[in-house]
């Protein structure tokens, strides 16, 4: 059997059997509802867990162990989806056939050490580790706006709605960072281990029985707890804002933020992406063809949809002097979408592209894992259904959807050294 979900009491274990891969992935997902005042401490925790442990007292020793595990790659972080914050730990490693017969167990021992045996002294994280991670987070907050290209779309989203959970700054906030102490962090750690809703996904060439045994032995979250969490997306308020900010850079970034409302599930999952591919997803899209190729106004221009956030962002790197012309051309193409000025070829190309991307997922371990996560959390379809549904999308679906797309924010991050 390819997929099986086993309730383990304090967490759900999802085993996804994919024998064709040489690597295995273990993904541990700890979830709770997002609170703005917790964003920073949660980020802090996800970082400090990979700094060191009681057994691997320095980051160097931790890094050496990953090499001993034949180059295992481990990462952690925070992912906000709807109003839920996921604190995740993910490890990819070569399976036993290419390593040795103890590999699976050694990896589980390693994860157990990281999750359940942090370097704690007197009910607090050790001061030197704490201070070092605090400096890292300070640096991350400080450099958040350093690169115009990555900063502009993030800033635009904040300006679209500061109160929306998924527009919170992933790096955290300085005011909150300064309030965290080694003791408070340890308390928060205990709270997370005891109370977060946990799902573990293991994907690769796995023996269900053996992996279940290893999970039972090494993944020991405390007590019974709520086994599911609901993902809720708030509705949007559209406010038509035009904002400009400056930055010391050679190039300016123009971001248009569109909000959508009252979408059906089909629109969210399929029509929205077909729409944004036609508009600005690739070399033959309307934006690329007209703004870049015909008028040479930019090198990068694209439209990206997020079904979760229910927004579409158009972004373009331009010279500030071309702001008015670029804006006019972009709005014209968005208008063309609403008027249904879309050829049969544009529609079929967009669908082909999305179907191709869906088919491609089968060759990637992490994509396959994410399919099962989406199915379990949000009841999304698996690839076979997705392909059928993309094929069903009609021109009238696109124009109906286009009516629900509203310009909320026009934002220019102007480069002051042009």
């Amino acid at each position, binding site marked *: 059997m390819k997929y099986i979900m086993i309730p383990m009491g304090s967490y759900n274990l999802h085993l996804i059997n994919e024998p064709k891969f040489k690597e295995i992935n273990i993904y541990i997902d700890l979830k709770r509802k997002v609170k703005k005042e917790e964003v920073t401490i949660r980020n802090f925790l996800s970082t400090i867990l990979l700094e060191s442990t009681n057994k691997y007292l320095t980051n*160097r020793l931790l890094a050496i162990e990953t090499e001993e595990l034949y180059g295992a790659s481990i990462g952690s972080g925070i992912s906000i989806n709807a109003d839920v914050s996921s604190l995740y730990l993910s490890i990819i490693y070569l399976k036993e056939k290419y390593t040795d017969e103890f590999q699976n167990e050694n990896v589980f021992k390693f994860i157990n050490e990281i999750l359940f045996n942090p370097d704690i002294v007197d009910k607090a994280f050790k001061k030197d580790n704490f201070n070092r991670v605090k400096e890292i987070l300070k640096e991350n907050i400080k450099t958040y706006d*350093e690169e115009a*290209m990555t900063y502009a779309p993030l800033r635009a989203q904040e300006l679209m709605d500061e109160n929306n959970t998924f527009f919170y700054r992933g790096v955290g906030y300085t005011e909150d960072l300064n309030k965290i102490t080694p003791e408070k962090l340890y308390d928060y750690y205990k709270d997370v281990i005891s109370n977060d809703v946990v799902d573990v996904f293991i994907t690769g060439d796995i023996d269900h029985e053996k992996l279940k045994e290893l999970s039972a032995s090494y993944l020991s979250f405390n007590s019974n707890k709520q086994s599911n969490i609901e993902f809720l997306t708030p509705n949007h308020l559209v406010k038509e804002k035009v904002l400009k900010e400056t930055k*010391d850079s050679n190039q300016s970034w123009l971001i248009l933020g569109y909000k959508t409302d009252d979408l059906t599930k089909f629109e969210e999952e399929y029509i929205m992406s077909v729409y944004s591919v036609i508009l600005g997803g690739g070399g033959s899209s309307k934006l690329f063809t007209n703004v870049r190729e015909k008028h040479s106004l930019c090198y*990068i221009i694209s439209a990206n949809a997020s079904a979760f956030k229910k927004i579409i962002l158009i972004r373009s790197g331009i010279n500030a002097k071309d702001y008015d012309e670029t804006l006019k051309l972009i709005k014209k193409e968005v208008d063309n979408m609403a008027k249904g000025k879309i050829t049969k070829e544009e529609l079929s190309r967009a669908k082909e592209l999305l179907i191709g991307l869906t088919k*491609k997922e089968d060759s990637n371990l992490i994509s396959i894992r994410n399919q099962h996560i989406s199915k379990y959390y949000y009841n999304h379809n698996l690839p076979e259904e997705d392909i059928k549904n993309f094929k069903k999308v009609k021109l009238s679906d696109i124009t109906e959807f286009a009516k629900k797309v509203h310009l909320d924010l026009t934002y220019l991050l102007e480069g002051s050294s042009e």
Partner: protein
Amino acid sequence: MNKITIPGIELDLYSKTLNNGLTVYIIPKNDIEDTFVTFTTKYGSVHNDFIPLGKDTMYTVPSGIAHFLEHKMFEQEDGTDPFTIFEQNGAMANANTWFHRTVYLFNTTEKLKDNLNFLLDYVQSPYFTDENVEKEKGIIIQEINMYLDDAIDRFYEASRANAFIKDPIKISVIGTEETVSSITKEDLYLCYNTFYHPSNMFVLVTGNVNPDEVIKIIETNQSNKNYPKAKEIVLKEFLEPDQIDVKKEMIKMDVKIPKISYNFKIRIPEIKELDKDIVIGYISAFFNSKFDATSTFTEKMRSSGIVNKGIDVYSTESNNYMLYTISAETEKYDEFARSVETEMQDLFVGEKEFLRKKKMMLAGVVTTSEDIVGLNYYFLENIAKRGKIKTDIYNDIKEMNYETFKNIINNINFENTNIVILESK
């Protein structure tokens, strides 16, 4: 068609050189639906001085032209856009230019024959006009400005440029606003006709594929096209010295935390019976042991507060040299630089460390083979640099030993270094 099984990753490699000189390599992976195809010319940003096909004297073209040419390949005489055609056939296409090669590629789960024919056709039908050349300049200048804003890119550019004196790898791949503005359609055709001759190119297919079918498709496609007889391309020779061009540079840009790169220019020793890739492997094992996350150096830097995050180690190869870059974000860059110098006063790396790095290299070959894109690029770079494919890498790594490691390291000159510091105004 030749067939061999690649050791360590248990995949087969099929290859054949066609009559016009084009070589085709195929590595099937049929447990997935995905196919990745690259069509590469061994021509990149460093090849600006050469004897053009049909001529007999050296000619110089403006820098950035290989990249410019790559952009222009997407222009077709009938006005259709290659991206459009690929997307209609369910494929995603792209291209990229680097120092020693230019790659045209697509990724697809269907219509391989149509996509493959189209890839060969659009790359093999150049169409440059004065008008379309002018238009492209605006776009590329935007691209140049985008990179000028990119701190990491500026940093990497200077780290490399300052280390080399004669080697054209010194110059940025995309050129400058000045050089790009001077490109003409005549220059483009000159470069194209010389470097895009099939004998200077190769196709590499990884993923879901039937080798016999693919060879047949390509042979049929090529048989309809005529090329002048293949001639060896003559490039201007240069002798790169061991010395560094600019020993220290401070770049002032809007960065919140200063960055420093400490660069080691290493002449790659020629050792009998050892492939260049393995010699490089030994030297990389040395630098990784000395400076990566597992090193005592990094631990010292972090515990003393000089560096908070990590230290990056990466390398660039050009002809007889490797440039190893040790980089970090730190306010205390002078201390960092002094610490690197102190660390390099003792070149000792223990056998345990070396063997662990060897383990990592072996594992690396296996993990690379997992992803058809990574697998394709791995061999593509190999062929572009060495002229032929190296399939025995796994077994050669297995043969690596501590004695050879010590001998190589003890005979290397680590004195040729340059520093680049990036900090705010």
